[in-house]
């Protein structure tokens, strides 16, 4: 089966600019996650979707970050405006209803904010 797809793989922007990341989960996976992985740290969950509804966004900085999964399939994560501390790898993951504990991760998008 095809894995989790993410694009772009790399992005460099200046602070105060906006950026968007796209994720296409494994077909049929109802749950989708966005993680932020800062260099030298483990991934931190930003937001979790179940189909097109938000399950948990408690760690999403809502003043600048937004995410949507309108049709319950692919998802977009946006940052506006970006700050230097947003430099990180943004990972998307998905899991199926039958085995929710097994998350499949995409390759990530490496964001550099200058």
């Amino acid at each position, binding site marked *: 089966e095809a*894995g*989790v797809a993410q694009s772009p793989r790399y992005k460099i922007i200046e602070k105060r600019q906006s950026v968007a990341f796209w994720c296409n989960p494994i077909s049929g996976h109802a749950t989708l996650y966005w993680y932020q992985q800062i260099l030298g740290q483990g*991934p931190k969950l930003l937001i979790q979707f179940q189909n097109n509804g938000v399950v948990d966004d408690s760690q999403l900085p809502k003043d600048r970050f937004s995410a949507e999964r309108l049709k319950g399939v692919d998802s977009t994560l946006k940052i506006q405006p970006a700050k230097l501390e947003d430099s990180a790898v943004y990972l998307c993951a998905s899991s199926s209803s039958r085995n929710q*504990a*097994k998350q499949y991760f995409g390759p990530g998008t490496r964001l550099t904010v200058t």
Partner: protein
Amino acid sequence: AQSVTQPDIHITVSEGASLELRCNYSYGATPYLFWYVQSPGQGLQLLLKYFSGDTLVQGIKGFEAEFKRSQSSFNLRKPSVHWSDAAEYFCAVGASNNFNKFYFGSGTKLNVKP
């Protein structure tokens, strides 16, 4: 609150030697525990998980981990390391009320000497 500590940032072992990566967690109830591996430029891959039952769990690629409740530990082991095992390893704990919400440790980077 849940937390995960991986005390070793870097570990170097010789090919063929045994390996143990340490993981300590903090959680009030019975935890769900995971080990993931991340190769450069790739997403995280699940090595093994513990939910309940036998405290010694077997995973892929010859890895195993042992859950020790008294020590709040879930250390990862491999009897003979291969050069292809060089990667970064992350331990994670899942919340019991949303067990697919993971808290990751900061990772241990493994180098393998020929």
